[in-house]
């Protein structure tokens, strides 16, 4: 594989950049693989990469019905954080933070990981107490957390509305300084390029039509490019999980919903890190290009449409204006939607299934992007060793039956109750 560096950039400049190697090939599927990963998004690509790198399993195919990186990994707001209260969520995502910190070097691809911090704003004394509790829990798990008072928040984001006569005055906030953002497309492309170089076949425009199961064991999948056999199959399809589950006669604790995001026209630097509004669902950061990147609530009803409705955008931005009144003068550049696999407790599922050789990775709700590396890392372990890693042992499928829910915020799919 061609190494990307300033020297290769200069060298290729002499030939007008016409002689770069392809980043990944376009192979025809083989008859059989050791592992098939369904879904060529961030999580699927990362899983294939870690299968090859950590477990030396390289006879792997990624099957993607569209093109790689065309789903939620290309549709998110690029936020990376590990500010969770529960041990299982905190440890899992902090392990992921360590992977993020070294990801550009490891993949030889600049994912532009930029740890500029995240602040969750608090708007009441009760919320400050809740944040103190969450911050303490985070620190017990080795995650950096700082409780900021009103004046400290004002130093970091002076452009926010600090008036005292507003409906939700800013009391303070909880900050995770090591949180940040990354360039989402680069994450997909970086994993794809490395996985391809280690022998993984990336098969695009190939849709799974049926699963072959005999005696309770998976033997392969029938696709739009023909039959492909496999010893093991992993599902990494986010919002399409329920569609594939139906083909497997499974019903899952997952509902598919549309989540929208939007960006404003680019402006000069005004906001350094990520800020979330604590009295509604709104979060904002500024991209390296200067656009304000914003998101919030689900559209609120089951949806497979990868585009949203304006009432939700209006609702989200109403919250936005309450914190940052300057947004009212910005023009909206783009809005878009992605379909989320909303689990019933708000936490993901990375587990085996009742079918031998079939593995499930889903339920990422609003927060799949930040977990891309650690999701791939643990899912690769689960597939390779046929058992969950300690990090994802609590992300089990049967936790809903046994009552061991991971309701970090107590919000799953039922946002209309929230």
């Amino acid at each position, binding site marked *: 594989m061609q190494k990307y560096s300033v020297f290769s950039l200069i060298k290729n400049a002499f030939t007008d950049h016409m002689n770069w190697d392809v980043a990944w090939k376009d192979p025809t599927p083989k008859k059989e693989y050791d592992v098939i990963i369904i879904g060529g998004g961030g999580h699927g690509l990362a899983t294939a990469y870690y299968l090859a790198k950590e477990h030396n399993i390289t006879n792997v195919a990624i099957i993607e019905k569209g093109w790689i990186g065309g789903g939620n990994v290309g549709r998110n707001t690029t936020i990376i954080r590990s500010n969770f209260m529960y041990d299982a969520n905190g440890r899992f995502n902090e392990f992921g933070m360590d992977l993020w910190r070294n990801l550009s070097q490891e993949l030889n691809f600049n994912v532009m990981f930029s740890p500029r911090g995240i602040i969750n704003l608090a708007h009441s004394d009760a919320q400050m107490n809740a944040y103190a509790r969450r911050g303490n829990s985070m620190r017990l798990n080795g995650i950096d957390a700082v409780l900021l008072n009103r004046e400290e928040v004002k130093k970091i984001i002076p452009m926010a509305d600090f008036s005292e006569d507003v409906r939700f005055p800013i009391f303070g906030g909880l900050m995770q300084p090591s949180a940040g953002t990354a360039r989402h497309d680069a994450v997909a492309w970086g994993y794809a390029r490395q996985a391809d170089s280690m022998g993984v076949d990336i098969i695009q425009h190939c849709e799974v039509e049926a699963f072959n199961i005999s005696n309770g064991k998976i033997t392969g999948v029938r696709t739009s490019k023909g039959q492909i056999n496999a010893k093991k199959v992993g599902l990494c399809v986010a919002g399409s999980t329920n569609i594939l589950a139906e083909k497997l006669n499974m019903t899952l604790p*997952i*509902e598919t919903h549309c989540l929208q995001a939007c960006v404003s026209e680019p402006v000069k630097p005004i906001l350094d890190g990520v800020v979330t509004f604590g009295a509604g669902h709104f979060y904002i950061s500024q991209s390296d290009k200067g656009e304000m990147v914003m998101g919030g609530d689900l559209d609120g009803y*089951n949806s*497979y*449409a990868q585009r949203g*409705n304006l009432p939700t955008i209006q609702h989200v931005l109403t919250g936005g204006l309450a914190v940052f009144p300057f947004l009212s003068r910005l023009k909206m550049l783009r809005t878009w939607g992605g379909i989320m696999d909303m689990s019933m407790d708000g936490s993901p599922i990375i587990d085996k299934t009742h079918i031998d050789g079939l593995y499930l990775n889903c339920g990422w709700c609003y927060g799949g992007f930040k977990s891309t590396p650690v999701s791939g890392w643990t899912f690769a372990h689960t597939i390779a060793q046929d058992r969950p890693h300690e990090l994802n042992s609590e992300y089990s499928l049967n936790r809903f039956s046994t009552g061991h829910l991971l309701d970090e915020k107590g919000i799953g799919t039922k946002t209309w109750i929230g």
Partner: protein
Amino acid sequence: MLHIKCPFCGMRSQNEFAYGGDASVKRPELNKEVTDKDWDDFVYNRKSLRGKHLELWHHISGCRQWFKVERDTATHEIFKTAKMSDEI
């Protein structure tokens, strides 16, 4: 913006309504032994169909009645709405 025909008030904008989820889910019968599987299916497990989906909506900023809607989850086309007591 969805336009939903409330069976009581007629056509109204989406922002008068709240969503209530899959209408095909049935609570296991009262005062009878319920298996864990049946309870899971009632509380957690959902088919979340792509295409025609029978669901509950609540006219929360209107007559406050619950009713059923048959809607396409991919195109958002609404085929029918009906009172809770009526079949679709």
